[in-house]
């Protein structure tokens, strides 16, 4: 079996992630942050350690500005719903996932003005078009760091600099880049960073978060949910302290234990090492696919400018047929279709048919990429 669906969720997970989750349930099963006994405190420490590892990975100075959520979608909803009010203007791009577009379209019906800056067919963003859009002012600019369809990496630091100059906050959807591409929220001037735990951070599903930059005043953000935090229990109002304002109810302790181990795995392996490995795989994949007659590869076709996510189509073949044959005849697992990103597929010209998407991870090997290329070659021939 060759697993090339890492843009959906990474597989396999490092053994230390599984050990950490097992250990949490076996040894530290208290409710973090609720009681003063040793099992609760130990569970709280594990959750705190994960917060600290995430802060280190993203260059955040204060671990308490890392808010845990269920996934990137939850983090994006928290940020978008928490910040935007009727009459506000928000700017996004033509290559976003529905995790951004659906909350924005719902907010639009509630009086938020949504401006979409189009992207080129290779997913790149015209910075002068962004500058024009910013002339009308905006409360927020929300962009993905890399496309989940074609992997194109957007120039976040340049986008953030322009947004800040126009007085807007910058929310980055790092679902496809956390753990894969270096991210430093202060150096890149990111105000809010939404990430998921189960992709490039090698944690389990049900984990993710929102990191608040130093410039963000948390008082300006409404919580998505309110409830018990184990703090200020004498009051029936939600506390303003971080992270409690945005974290209530029993957290996914076992998941966060796994996420913490995943982040430490990434820190130990080193983002640069991971990135170099994935660039080499992506280069081989793009070159190999481009040589197959009838195959069209989308995106920049330059491994340095994208993540390890590559989309392609085959002339006169349904993507669903290719996906099924890859799985059944060759054991190559990938994702075909629209990848929850109709806007991105319209931009690259593949709506509504979609593409076949291959996405590698740090555990993917060059031999696997070669075998997957052989499989595509044989499917194209017959």
């Amino acid at each position, binding site marked *: 079996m060759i697993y090339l669906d890492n843009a959906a969720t990474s597989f396999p997970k490092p053994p230390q992630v599984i050990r950490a989750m097992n250990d949490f349930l076996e040894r530290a099963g208290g409710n973090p942050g609720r009681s003063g*006994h040793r099992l609760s405190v130990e569970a709280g420490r594990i959750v705190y350690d994960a917060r600290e590892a995430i802060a280190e990975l993203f260059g955040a100075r204060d671990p308490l500005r890392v808010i845990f959520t269920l996934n990137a979608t939850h983090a994006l909803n928290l940020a978008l719903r928490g910040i935007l009010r009727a009459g506000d203007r928000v700017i996004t791009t033509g290559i976003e996932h529905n995790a951004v577009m659906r909350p924005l379209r719902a907010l639009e019906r509630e009086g938020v003005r949504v401006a979409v800056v189009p992207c080129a067919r290779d997913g790149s963003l015209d910075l002068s078009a962004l500058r024009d859009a910013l002339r009308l002012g905006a409360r927020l600019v929300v962009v993905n760091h890399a496309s989940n369809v074609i992997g194109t990496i957007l120039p976040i630091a340049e986008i953030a600099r322009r947004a800040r100059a126009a007085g807007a906050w910058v929310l980055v959807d790092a679902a496809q880049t956390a753990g894969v591409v270096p991210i430093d929220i202060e150096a890149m001037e990111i105000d809010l960073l939404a990430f998921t735990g189960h992709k490039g951070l090698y944690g389990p599903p049900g984990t993710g978060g929102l990191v608040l930059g130093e410039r963000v005043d948390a008082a300006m953000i409404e919580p998505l949910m309110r409830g018990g935090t184990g703090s200020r229990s004498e009051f029936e109002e939600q*506390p303003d302290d971080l992270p409690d304002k945005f974290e209530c109810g029993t957290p996914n302790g076992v998941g966060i234990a796994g996420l913490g181990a995943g982040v430490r795995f990434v820190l130990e392996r080193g983002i640069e090492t991971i990135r170099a490995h994935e660039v080499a795989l992506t280069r081989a994949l793009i070159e190999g696919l481009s040589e197959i007659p009838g195959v069209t590869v989308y995106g920049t076709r330059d491994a340095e400018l994208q993540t390890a996510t590559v989309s392609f189509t085959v002339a006169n073949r349904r993507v669903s047929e290719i996906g099924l044959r890859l799985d059944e005849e060759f054991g190559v697992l990938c994702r075909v279709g629209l990848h929850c990103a109709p806007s991105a597929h319209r931009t690259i010209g593949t709506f509504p048919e979609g593409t076949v998407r291959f996405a590698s991870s740090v555990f993917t090997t060059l031999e696997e990429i070669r075998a997957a290329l052989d499989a595509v070659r044989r499917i194209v021939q017959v």
Partner: protein
Amino acid sequence: MNCGVVLFHTNSAALRAEKVLQRAGLVVKLIPTPREFSSDCGIALRFEWQDAARVQQLLDEARVERASIEPMGG
């Protein structure tokens, strides 16, 4: 031995303080917040009162938010 406690608004701040002080070599322990103090957060950090100035300095340097630092009775 005379002890003091650091009180916090959040559990995460208490855990952060534990780490900061332990790294500096201080002897501290997270305990259920004694009921005579505020019930803001369920856990408090106990330390040896002779370290009070150092505790305050280290938490200030690391910018760990806290409610107060109190001597423990008895």
